[in-house]
């Protein structure tokens, strides 16, 4: 009994404080494809000598993770991925404001988005929304080429359109917000209801319809145009369409996580990632977005933003959580439940 009581005392006393280890590197949350993340990390490590610990997940997954980790952040910088989750994080104060000295070098749309988010995020690339169709399928079925948004609601393309579910994919939410801004809300929902009859599947992932159009699983796939370009350069028989009415775009973004343990290094990455050299890496890994630095070379295959009728996308309004929740609920109630 005495022995046990002694053991008890020892065990209780042993529970002394344990010091936490300090770190001196950069933890990068990367939300573009692995192929692009890796050369970025290698180039940054070479340029600065800072050791980068990189994890790749989609922007939605990282948003959820950063929010869950907020009490004790584990990441330093979150680079890439569509702008909405970045704006959402900015709105909730999960990210830190930072005005980079390179802000003057950026395209107008990138600066506007940064201002809207009180400099808690910044644009690193842009990609216009559009769709692609499988030329082989189209020819074999002797169908006319679709050119506009309105074409996608025509009965001749019944069961031939694929698009992601806006509840799960930022790409598709961008389409929803684009159509609302382009046509006005009532007309946009009329169009979506008409197109619903032609949609063969609302996929989970935003880029999946580009792949479906490339393989012929679906005739038409609505995605960001650069996703379709990636399929085209690897040899798929697809043609990319910028809808004649005009279209919206995403701004791939970058944010410094609030409470970053390596804040100085995070800012170094931030400035470096906005440089023309860093942004030139994308084209080498088959990513054909338009870079945000005016001096960065625009890849030849990239959809030319100057030739696309772009709408004046209101990132502040449609990136806000209230408006998104309202539109998604409306889409759920009025479109997704309709019979085919």
């Amino acid at each position, binding site marked *: 009994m005495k022995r046990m009581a002694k053991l008890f005392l020892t065990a209780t006393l*042993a529970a002394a404080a344990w010091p936490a280890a300090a770190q001196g590197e950069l933890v990068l949350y990367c939300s573009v494809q*692995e192929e692009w993340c890796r050369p970025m990390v290698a180039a940054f490590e070479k340029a600065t000598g800072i050791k980068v610990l990189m994890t790749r997940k989609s922007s939605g997954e990282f948003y959820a993770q950063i929010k869950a980790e907020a009490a004790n952040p584990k990441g330093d910088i979150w680079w890439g991925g569509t702008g909405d989750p970045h704006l959402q994080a900015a709105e909730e104060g999960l990210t830190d404001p930072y005005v980079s000295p390179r802000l003057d070098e950026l395209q107008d749309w990138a600066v506007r988005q940064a201002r809207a988010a009180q400099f808690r995020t910044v644009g690193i690339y842009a990609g216009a929304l559009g769709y692609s169709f499988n030329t082989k399928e189209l020819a074999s079925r002797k169908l006319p080429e679709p050119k506009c948004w309105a074409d996608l609601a025509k009965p001749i393309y019944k069961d031939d359109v694929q698009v992601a579910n806006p509840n799960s994919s930022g790409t598709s939410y961008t389409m929803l917000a684009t159509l609302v801004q382009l046509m006005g809300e009532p007309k946009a929902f009329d169009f979506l209801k008409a197109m619903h009859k032609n949609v063969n599947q609302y996929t989970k992932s935003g880029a999946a319809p580009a792949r479906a159009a490339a393989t012929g699983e679906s005739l038409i796939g609505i995605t960001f145009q650069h996703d379709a370009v990636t399929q085209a350069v690897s040899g798929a028989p697809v043609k990319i369409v910028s809808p004649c009415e005009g279209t919206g775009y995403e701004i791939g973004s970058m944010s410094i996580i609030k409470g970053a343990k390596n804040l100085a290094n995070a800012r170094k990455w931030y400035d470096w990632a906005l440089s023309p050299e860093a942004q030139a890496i994308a084209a080498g890994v088959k990513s054909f977005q338009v870079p945000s630095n005016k001096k960065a070379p625009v890849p030849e295959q990239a959809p030319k933003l100057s030739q696309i009728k772009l709408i004046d996308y209101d990132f502040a309004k449609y990136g806000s959580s209230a408006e998104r929740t309202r539109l998604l609920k409306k889409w759920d109630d009025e479109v997704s439940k309709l019979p085919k």
Partner: protein
Amino acid sequence: MTGSTAAALGLHRAGAAPHAALAAACAAALLGLLGGGFVAGTAASAFGPWHYAALLGLTLLFARSVARCGAFVGDVTVSAIVVTIAGLLLLFVFYPVGRSLVAALHDKEGNVALSLAAERLLSSDIWGLGCFGGGTTCGVAINSVVLATIVGLGTTLLGLVLALAAQRGGQRFSALYRLMAVLPIVTPPFVIALALVVLFGRTGVVTTTLNEWFDIPRTRWIYGLTGVTLAQLLTFTPIAFMILSGALAAVSPSLEEAAQTLRASRARVFRTVTWPLLRPALANSFLLAFVESLADFGNPVVLAGNYEVLSTKIFFAVAGAQHEPGRAAALATVLLAFTLLAFWLQQRWLGRASYVTVSGKGDAGVPAPLPTGLRRFCVGFAMAWIVFTLACYAVILVGGFVKDVGRGDMTPVVTHFAEGFGLAWQDGRPTFTGSAWDSFFTTIEVAAIAAPLTAIVGLLSAYVITRQQFVGRRAFEFLTLVAFAIPGTVIGVAYIVAFNVPPLELTGGLAILILCFVFRNMPVGVRAGIAALAQIDKSLDEASSTLRASTWRTLTKVVLPLLKPAIVATLIFSFTHAMTAVSAVIFLATAKYNLATVYIIGRVEAGEYPLAIAYSTVLIVFMLAVLLLVQAATGSVKLGRRSQAELITGH
């Protein structure tokens, strides 16, 4: 159990008072240590090794004192097992999951909003019955239950047919059956679904051939309920096969022989003896398939099309464009309720009948052959199913070595493997240059550490549940099984929220991945153990106890050797499940500790199927090799019965 109740229990025993005091002191210290840590949160530093040692010491001391007070029939070993495992479960399952499920009660600003919670739980998105005639779609909960019921019944039936063919249908194709049983278990998520798309998609190999030869129009039937059902049948039938085949092997032939001696026909023996003895295994198999189908994420993500199910809906409520943890928590609560209901129904169906067939008495018989018609049907059907399964795997194998199997570009290349698993000779030694090596090695490390821990925790729990009588036994059983019912996404997010801050700051490390796997896969160990122990007569333990062996000695010398098949099955299951789990770990993987499935899901998201398939091929080959090694090391277990050959030669 708190110190005070322990004290109350122990009062009737002489000399129990100091033990009760010690128990109370231990409980208080444990609560103080953990509670103080959680209250301090980020203000204090994280627990170090000494803290954990202290926690363990205090827990064991508490268990000892409680036993000395008279709880657990005074058995210190049983008390230590129950108290330690229950403590771990409370800390690593109930605390994090409870914390995240409470989110269902909060609105976006974090205020408690009960009306919102009710609205979330009762919404027509979840419970709508529109598909039964309303012209709209059904709610996700209805969809999930329909799918899980079909898959549960289907896999059990298929598993039974395969098991009958393998165990009682002659020895001709035994290697094939074993391969069949093993293949889908070592298969990473997405792979079966991707193979089905390549075969039966609108531009799939089979679809195109049918279209060209017979003018059958191309359709999209594979996307939706049919496709997911098919994929899940392929994925989960082997589990049913393993369970039923094990149960068939354990059915005592002497019972069947007795029936035959009493002049029962083959059909009557099967119907009145074999079949009733299979009931626990059938129930287990249905339950596992039902629950696995509910929790499955990889197949619906690729194939469900517009057929929404709970698991994917939860994932996208967390990580999709909606960002609604409250909704995810409500959906997770529904999923949890279904799984618990399944467990409850299973308990009801099994009742309290005895299924003991392995006893201390000699049991030397030969299993009764099947009725001829049934045997032919089983073998024929089993062959067809095996051919179908193998076709799916052929697609995967080929897919890794050609340019793009999805687009029909069959130019042979090795670039997919070179990119992921490249090796180079640098500075006079081989260097792993492929981008997949890091995640590959981490995955193996995590799985190899988690598997034995899972087996130990699971089987010890099964032993005390089936063999010991103590207050709160049913509650303990419930505790051990409930982790299986929790959707992976919920576990993943719950673990980050709970273990990202001191005192238990575990995120970003190896430990959190291992803990996640151990407590997620442990219910399988418990079930395997319970099923195995239910067939082993308790008189064997009692004989050991009568001969004055301690509980520990009985456990290691009598029970463990008889449990070898269950141990091997649990080890294999937890190892392969740790290597192939996806939705739970997607939030836990980090740069230092990345996992294979997280790498693969990135590829699938990017539409890069070839590299995903190539990586999957490597994982399959590796896990197969491990399985063969395990089988070679453990050998197959013989239950002291004469073999066919011995019978013929008259031994």
